[in-house]
């Protein structure tokens, strides 16, 4: 009897554990959590009294404006907020379910802005679009943001796709962000406020496709400089914020599968792998063979035929892609978060999430060619035309863990960790002809690129009284880029008499017939930063003084090795074999005199050490009720050393010491009827990328050009002028017009130098100056003005129109380059438009997005050739979100509906063209 009773109680306990919601349902209370934000500054407001109307329940907000009120009676709840100096606000219509935590963020306006108390509905106050606009409205400078909710509504799978919805943003190659038509060097990227190291060997750029959309809270693009931002900011600073924890324990999971018209179910060619490529985990299996590491660049060695045979046989015998059927794309993610008393009753907010996506993509109808000079000046003729297709198997996975907790009432501790890994395993097969050799050829390439980002950040925010806030963070971030064991195999296409009976024979002379390339890059960034802010003055007209500093140590190590295998004098019978036969060992025996091997990427390796210290002082002065003036200056001290060994074996090092003072002055004018006018003037700078400073000449193995850095490069000084008028007619709505002007003193441009035999070298030179002038329009408006039933449809558009002019000096440094033109990478316009319909309940939505970037210069012309132009291309995407049942939501995303080809042209020659095909993706989200 006793036993059965005990069993029964155990069972009941187990039932309670497994069905916590049903148990909680009996509890007729819920919890309200949220954050109170200063509408004028966008910062969390501490010490705001939050009261549940009609009860005695209430609390005061903590350091970052967060609050939590437990055991609130379920039902429709009204809360009231008040704080000295701010207009009190009453939020009605909070629907609190029993046993639930309700999250509600609220903005408070300084009392100077609005004297009468405000009453708003919870629905109106909610919504992260508002949050994004708030961020825009409240920031000191010109910012644009994309938030998690907007990303949710779009088909965007990663940060790069999401950020292109921001006004003035161009995304190149699906990865690299250009803002306001300025090249990558003018855009910096940070993750939770700390610089993300660059995993690209030739440029300073972060491929934003590394960050899965599921991990993002927001992507903020700041376009005007304030002294608390890094000084090498001239176009924009893109800050990626990872998701924060939800108020109550919440789970979510999402799975999806996609169909890519060009790849799924089609015959494709996939690369030969070693295992592990599918999850971006190849380890050492594709690493540079130890023997090759040992022999280095072969200089000073006198290799015997036996040595050569031994070295050649070290490579993996994989040269030809394999035929396969394209599998559908798959993706999934999960997240768990909450704010629970995990540690001895200490509440810890947490979010742990992971994501994985993989798929097969193709570039079909792929054409590439070179332009040669025609017999009329400036005209072009096509040479070296190749046609083919590229297939890539890609994978992206990652996870993050974000923790935060209050330490007492005045301190909040934060810990963010993020790890992402991606890989792209691609093959490209193409056929065409070489003008120089006068032969037809087939080229097969297999390339595997693996990238990873790891970032660990610890920080805290402390508030002492109302006046003082202090925050600090220490970050350690690392990126790796590995391109292990890329292969290229070229065969000459020979035809029998009268074009019959085609035979493929290895192009066994020269140094391009059979090439293996191994490259790695490691970069670490260690950064510490601290800021102190003092707020004083009457509420609503408060002045702020902010001081802070930053120390950042960046170390980079880039290593590239490439080897060419040839078979001088090999007979046709050998050359006609398949590559896997040629390299199966039959010609690597002791008596074989077939192979020769030579190192190619001599000098493609370098190291860099960058030590940056910065300090700033800025003040924000509420000069009048309608005028805030923000001014200050930042000092940066940079010590940069780049070391490399030239092809000829001599070590070359470049040391740069740059000390800069960067002043900035901005004013925000609050005009009647929710309008604002912002004016800003600042000086910023752009430093050369590390590789650009190394005066060695090497083959850029990624693009095949000879590249030489320039140790005489000066850093660029930029004067930025911005003016922006904004009007916020309603919550969620904005209309703004901005003008910007930038003057670049000594901008760094990628140029060409000419050499004998028609060869050329890519070089970096300081141009004399460049100007960039632009106009930015942004509108987000509910269509209720058209018809009432359209109230739930919102239209938005942003358009940036700009022009630039760069002038290069007529000297030997850029001898073969078009000297006066737009800056490389600058598009004359960038347009984003869209329509979103959201059902009243918010569970269903339809979003149509259109994006178009005007013709932009991909590379300057190699005189007298015209510039290489990346042609304008419209992209139309459609997303549907539908409730299925309960916590399940379905999503359907149709991407690239227009399937316009990517096309770069030079004069009349199509340099490159391909289609990626339309895609449809469907998935389910589960959010209990």
């Amino acid at each position, binding site marked *: 009897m006793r036993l059965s009773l005990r069993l029964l109680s155990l069972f009941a306990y187990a039932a309670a554990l497994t069905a916590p919601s049903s148990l909680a349902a009996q509890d007729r209370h819920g919890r309200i959590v949220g954050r109170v934000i200063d509408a004028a500054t966008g910062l969390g407001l501490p010490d705001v009294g939050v009261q549940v109307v009609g009860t005695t329940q209430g609390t005061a907000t903590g350091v970052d404006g967060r609050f939590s009120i437990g055991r609130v009676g379920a039902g429709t709840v009204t809360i009231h907020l008040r704080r000295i100096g701010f207009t009190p606000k009453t939020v009605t219509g909070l629907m609190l379910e029993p046993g639930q935590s309700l999250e509600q963020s609220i903005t408070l306006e300084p009392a100077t802005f609005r004297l009468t108390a405000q009453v708003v509905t919870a629905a109106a106050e909610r919504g992260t679009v508002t949050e994004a606009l708030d961020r825009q409205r409240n920031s000191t400078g010109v910012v644009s943001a994309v938030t998690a909710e907007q990303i949710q509504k779009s088909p965007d799978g990663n940060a790069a796709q999401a950020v292109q919805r921001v006004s003035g943003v161009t995304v190149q190659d699906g990865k690299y962000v250009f803002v306001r038509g300025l090249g990558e060097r003018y855009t910096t990227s940070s993750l939770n406020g700390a610089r993300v190291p660059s995993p690209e060997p030739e440029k300073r750029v972060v491929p934003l496709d590394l960050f899965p959309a599921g991990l993002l809270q927001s992507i903020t693009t700041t376009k005007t400089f304030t002294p608390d931002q890094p000084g090498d900011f001239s176009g924009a600073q893109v800050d990626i914020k990872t998701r924060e924890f939800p108020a109550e324990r919440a789970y979510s999971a999402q799975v999806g599968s996609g169909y890519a018209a060009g790849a799924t179910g089609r015959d494709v060619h996939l690369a030969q792998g070693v295992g592990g490529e599918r999850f971006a985990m190849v380890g050492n299996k594709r690493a540079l063979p130890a023997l090759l590491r040992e022999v280095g660049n072969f200089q000073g060695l006198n290799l015997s035929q036996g040595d050569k045979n031994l070295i050649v046989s070290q490579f993996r015998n994989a040269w030809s892609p394999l035929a396969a059927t394209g599998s559908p794309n798959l993706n999934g993610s999960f997240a768990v978060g909450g704010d629970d008393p995990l540690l001895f009753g200490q509440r810890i907010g947490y979010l742990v999430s992971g994501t994985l996506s993989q798929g097969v993509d193709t570039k079909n109808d792929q054409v590439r060619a070179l332009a040669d000079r025609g017999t009329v000046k400036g005209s072009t003729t096509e040479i070296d035309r190749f046609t083919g297709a590229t297939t890539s198997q890609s994978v992206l996975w990652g996870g993050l863990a974000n923790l935060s907790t209050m330490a007492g009432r005045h301190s909040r501790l934060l810990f963010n960790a993020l790890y992402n890994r991606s890989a792209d395993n691609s093959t490209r097969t193409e056929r065409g002809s070489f003008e120089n050799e006068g032969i037809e050829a087939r080229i097969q390439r297999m390339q595997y690129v693996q990238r990873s980002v790891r970032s660990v950040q610890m920080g805290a925010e402390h508030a002492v009284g109302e006046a003082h806030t202090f925050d600090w963070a220490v970050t350690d971030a690392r990126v790796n880029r590995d391109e292990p064991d890329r292969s290229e195999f070229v065969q000459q296409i020979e035809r029998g008499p009268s074009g019959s009976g085609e035979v493929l*024979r290895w192009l066994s002379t020269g140094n391009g017939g059979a090439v293996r390339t191994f490259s790695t890059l490691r970069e670490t960034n260690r950064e510490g930063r601290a800021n102190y802010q003092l707020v004083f003055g009457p509420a609503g007209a408060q002045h702020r003084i902010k001081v802070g500093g930053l120390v950042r140590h960046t170390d980079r190590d880039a290593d590239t090795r490439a080897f060419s295998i*040839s078979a001088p004098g090999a007979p046709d019978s050998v050359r006609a074999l398949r590559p896997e036969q040629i390299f199966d060992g039959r010609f690597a025996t002791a008596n074989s005199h077939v192979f020769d091997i*030579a190192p190619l990427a001599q000098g493609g390796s370098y190291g860099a050490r960058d030590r940056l210290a910065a300090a700033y002082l800025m003040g924000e002065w509420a000069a009048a009720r309608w005028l805030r003036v923000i001014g200050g200056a930042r000092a940066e001290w940079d010590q940069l050393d780049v070391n490399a060994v030239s092809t000829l074996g001599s070590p070359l090092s470049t040391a740069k010491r740059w000390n800069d003072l960067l002043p900035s002055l901005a004013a925000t004018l609050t005009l009647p009827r929710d309008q604002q006018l912002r004016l800003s003037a600042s000086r910023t700078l752009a430093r050369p990328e590390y590789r650009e400073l190394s005066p*060695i000449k090497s083959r850029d193995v990624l693009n095949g050009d000879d590249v030489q850095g320039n140790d005489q490069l000066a850093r660029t000084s930029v004067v930025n002028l911005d003016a922006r008028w904004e009007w916020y007619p309603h919550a969620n709505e904005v209309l703004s017009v901005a003008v910007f002007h930038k003057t670049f003193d000594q901008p760094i441009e990628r140029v060409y130098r000419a050499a004998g035999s028609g060869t050329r070298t890519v070089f970096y030179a300081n141009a004399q100056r460049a100007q960039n002038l632009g106009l930015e329009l942004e509108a987000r408006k509910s269509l209720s003005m058209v018809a009432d039933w359209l109230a739930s449809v919102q239209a938005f558009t942003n358009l940036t129109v700009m022009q630039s002019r760069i002038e290069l000096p007529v000297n*030997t440094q850029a001898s073969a380059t078009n000297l006066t033109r737009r800056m490389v990478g600058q598009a004359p316009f960038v347009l984003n438009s869209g329509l979103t319909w959201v059902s009243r309940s918010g569970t269903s939505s339809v979003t149509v997005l259109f994006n178009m970037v005007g013709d932009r210069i991909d590379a300057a012309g190699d005189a007298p050739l015209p510039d290489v132009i990346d042609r304008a291309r419209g992209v139309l995407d459609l997303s549907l979100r539908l409730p299925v049942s309960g916590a399940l939501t379905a999503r359907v995303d149709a991407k690239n509906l227009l399937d316009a080809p990517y096309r770069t042209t030079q004069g009349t020659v199509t340099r490159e063209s391909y289609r990626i095909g339309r895609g449809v993706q469907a998935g389910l989200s589960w959010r209990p």
Partner: protein
Amino acid sequence: MIPFRRSALAAFLAAVSLSACSSDSSTAPTVTPVIGASATAVSSSAVKLSFSSKSGDTGYNIERAEGAAGTFAQVGTVAAPASAGTVTYTDANLKVTTVYRYRIITVRGTTSVASAEISVTTLAFGSAAADLTTDITTSRTLYADTTYTLKGFVHVANGATLTIQPGTTIKGDYTILGSSLMVLRGAKIQAVGTADAPIVFTSSRAAGQRQAGDWGGLIIVGNAPINRSGSVEIEGSGTDGQTVVGGKNYQVLYSGGNTPTDNSGELKYVRVEFAGFAPSLNNELNAFTFAAVGSGTKVSYVNAVAGLDDSFEFFGGGFDLSYGVAFEGEDDQFDMSEGFQGRLQFLISYKSTNVPIRTGAGSYATDMEGIENDGCNGSGCDLGFDTAPFTQPVVANFTLIGPASQSITGAGGGFGMMLRRGTGGYYVNGVLARYPAAGISLRDAATFARAGSAVIPNLATADLAVKNVYIAETPLAFQAPSATQNAFDLAGNSITHGSAITAASLFASIPATGAAPANGETAFDFTPATNSPIATGGLATFTGKLAAKAGTAVVGTAYLGAAAPGGAKWWQGWTNYVRN
């Protein structure tokens, strides 16, 4: 007799003056001969005499005789030092490895006595050693007695003249990658050797271990025009940056010249061996590079041996070159482009096999040709292939023999003459043999347009013509015509395709097809064999634009090829067939 008489007069005058001076001397004039004098050869051209003076001697006359039987003549005098001690005398400007006898005549007052004879042999060429490490900024002479080693990129700077004595050897250091000699614009090189004593540029490695690409090469930059606009640098230069640092590979430009008559000096009897290191990928240096070299420059009797890139490459400019020989060059034997206007006569190339390449120096070409001429290619060709001035050389009396195997010439190579990208020029009285692809490739419409787009170019108007050429042991005379490929009429241009004729049958003596000649082979005889079809059939009289262009520098011949029947074997003695 005359020298004797002159020296006797000198001795008489000396004696008079010495006796006048010695009138104060109180010492009794008892003269004794010098004992124990030594003579040491200090170089290939100098001998140092050393002996002890005696108190009371007035001075010493130095007499020299050449060989075992030559007669003595006075070559100098030395005054006796105030107190007895060692006297030295250096006799310079002597012949290499030659026996000289010396004697010293002691003069005391009016009396004199001769010492015993001392015999000495001057040293061989290159016995001394010196390094060339930094740029040559003031005029300098390199002496035959010294073997010089180029360590790094040594430039002869504007305004300086580098004179090199006959017989001088200059080695490119194998260990300092790419070591090269660059004669910059405004500088001159006077490297005039003789058939007996050629000037040799070679690898620093020992014979037998040398490989193509062991060192850089000889680069001469002039101030004549090229047809590319903008700044153009020497291929492979600039790997150490743009800043001028002596001995480093800084950027060297050759564009923008405007003096067609510019003079970069003279090369005669000069050999360049085992050159061609690639300072950057695919940018191998040539054995001889002539960039924008003007017509004031004289080049004759030049021999490129086992270079990794082209044997002779000409970028723009124009000057006369006669008697050029290319042995086993790994890319093109003669490569002209960018508006080259030179006149070349008597050219030989012999290519039979791949010479081993220095590990890591570069790679074998994919398109090895005998002659590869381009009109204009690359940036700065403002009108593409039609950019003027056209590449328009006169190339006459050439004997170009290929390796007969496409596996050696590379997939894109194997043509006796590749004429493309709008090149012009007049190619006459030549022999092409053993080319596996075709004798001649006449590529692209722009090139054909130079010939008036006529299959028989009219010399009165055409900028391009191929006349009187014999093609042997080669599958096709012209590459098969296609959309971009053209061919001249054979008979109308006196082009003979001896499809069944072997190369060996044309010449007095050349190695068999596929056989690599022995190292040091001297038996090449490019003279037409008896009854060889190339002994006749030459274009003896030039007309039209060819005559105008050739002037007196290049004249017509009754024979084809580089050697006249029964004529001088001009390549013998000073060239060097060697593969390692």
